[in-house]
């Protein structure tokens, strides 16, 4: 049995971080069969986090972000062609160029794309950008080099805030609009969002919260000139960056019979995809941003993570399980982690901050601009966020993994005076956000409305 799993044909759809790391791991696990990696972008796998940081700052070329290999996966790379469908009965991936690729086992790692501006005509104006791909970032960096008079950033999540930070560092005027009460509120809750609000204003961002952009205007020759806001005001700008979150690339699976939809492709803790009846498959696996998987630390709710670290860890587990039989398979249990650098600060997170009812500032303070915020839910620690105190994150990861009581016991050095006083974590109802947080819990808890469904029409 195990010999069989090390042979045959494996197709990986998605040629970014998760696809590459899975391909490498398959070879490490002894897979000797044929391996094909399909990617819709023409580029070999590249690293996306630098696109909103080094690349927009002009410190690295957009062409320089290709990912290094841990080892050569000896794969056939089919780049620049989109997967258009999946036949799970005949076990074939259909490609947009008409070809079909037969497989014995399949890994779905198609990730996400930037959510486009809802009005296609306005979104097509020259000067309107999203930043998800290396081509997006390269074009935007060129425009920033030309010295625009003002950049409008639509959406104050991590991506929008990092873009605003890069622009301000280059001395470019920035207006940022956020539909919520403050930037980063969707990912970190109300308390730290107030800090982010102050931070952005201190660095000269013209911050407009509680408003939405209702229209992008052009000059009649297809060139972006400004935007109209929901409070009746207008913003004149040469560039608009739409940073309204991501859309999961699952459309190609619509007729596949898999449990795939706007929230991702559902899979079990071993990365095996569920079909539409909730029956687990044994030849289709999922990893990275496109997956939804149950996490025991978060009451087995289905979790979607748009995180670099999750793509790496889940890809390794998926690949291991594709090359090993049942009893030797492993679960994907790693605690979510992410980082963001903006306005000269290092913001890092472990756990799920939105899975909380209270928090304490355990170390440091908002005033010092360096702190550890520890989040709790019903008396246990569920997350920690550090600002310029990253060395503490491992300690709190351990507390999260062991379901330590909240508020945390006074063991840490440098304990703040506020550490004994939990305050409401003020996590917003996702329905009021203009873009999803980068961690989404998509299960159901009776007392928490994590998902709302409206009838259409």
């Amino acid at each position, binding site marked *: 049995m195990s010999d069989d799993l090390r042979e045959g044909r494996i197709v990986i759809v998605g040629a970014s971080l998760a696809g*590459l790391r899975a391909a490498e791991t398959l070879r490490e696990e002894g897979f000797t069969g044929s391996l094909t990696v399909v990617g819709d972008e023409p580029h*070999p*796998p590249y*690293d996306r*986090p*630098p696109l909103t*940081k*080094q690349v927009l*700052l002009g*410190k*690295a*070329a957009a062409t*320089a*972000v*290709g*990912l*290094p*290999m*841990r080892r*050569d*996966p*000896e*794969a*056939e*790379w089919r*780049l620049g062609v989109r997967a258009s469908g999946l036949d799970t009965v005949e076990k074939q991936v259909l490609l947009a160029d008409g070809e079909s690729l037969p497989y014995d086992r399949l890994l779905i790692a198609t990730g996400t794309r930037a959510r486009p501006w809802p009005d296609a005509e306005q979104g097509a104006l020259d000067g309107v950008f999203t930043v998800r791909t290396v081509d997006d970032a390269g074009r935007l960096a060129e425009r920033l080099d030309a010295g625009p008079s003002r950049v409008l950033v639509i959406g104050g999540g991590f991506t929008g805030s990092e873009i605003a930070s890069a622009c301000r560092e280059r001395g470019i005027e920035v207006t940022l609009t956020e539909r919520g009460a403050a930037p980063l509120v969707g990912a970190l809750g109300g308390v730290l969002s107030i800090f982010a609000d102050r931070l952005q204003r201190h660095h000269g961002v013209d911050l407009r919260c509680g408003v939405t952009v209702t229209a992008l205007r052009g000059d009649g020759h297809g060139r972006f000139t400004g935007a109209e806001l929901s409070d009746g005001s207008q913003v004149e700008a040469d560039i608009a960056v739409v940073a309204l979150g991501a859309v999961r690339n699952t459309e190609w699976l619509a007729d596949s019979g898999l449990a795939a939809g706007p929230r991702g492709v559902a899979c079990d803790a071993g990365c095996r995809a569920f079909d539409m009846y909730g029956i687990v498959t044994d030849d289709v696996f999922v990893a990275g941003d496109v997956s939804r998987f149950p996490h025991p630390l978060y009451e087995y709710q289905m979790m979607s993570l748009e995180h*670099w*670290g999750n793509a*790496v860890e889940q890809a390794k587990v998926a690949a291991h399980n594709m090359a090993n039989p049942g009893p030797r398979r492993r679960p994907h249990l790693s605690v979510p*982690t*992410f*980082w963001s*650098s903006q306005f*000269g*600060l*290092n913001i*890092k997170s472990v756990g799920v901050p939105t899975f909380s009812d209270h928090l304490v500032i355990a170390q440091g303070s908002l005033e010092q601009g*360096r702190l550890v915020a520890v989040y709790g839910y019903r008396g246990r620690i569920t997350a920690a966020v550090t600002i*310029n105190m*990253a*060395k503490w*994150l491992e300690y709190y990861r351990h507390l999260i993994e062991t379901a330590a009581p909240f508020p945390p016991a006074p063991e840490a050095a440098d304990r703040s005076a506020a550490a004994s006083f939990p305050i409401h974590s003020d996590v917003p109802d996702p329905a009021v956000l203009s873009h999803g947080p980068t961690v989404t819990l998509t299960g159901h808890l009776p007392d928490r409305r994590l998902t709302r469904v409206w009838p259409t029409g």
Partner: protein
Amino acid sequence: MRIVVDLNRCQGYAQCVFFAPDLFELHGEEALLYDPAVPEERLEAVRQAAAACPVQAILVGEEVSSRVR
């Protein structure tokens, strides 16, 4: 050659900044910025930086493009 730093692991010890200040820099107190493209003549310095990293967060390797036909 290319580098990628696992910034979940990175804790800002800045050993890499000492070995190759032209490729690694701290942005503020502890946010690391780096140039992913390693010039051939800096490869040795980058390998030393990777070896010296206390949390082993730096991966140096060939780009995939070298293997794409």
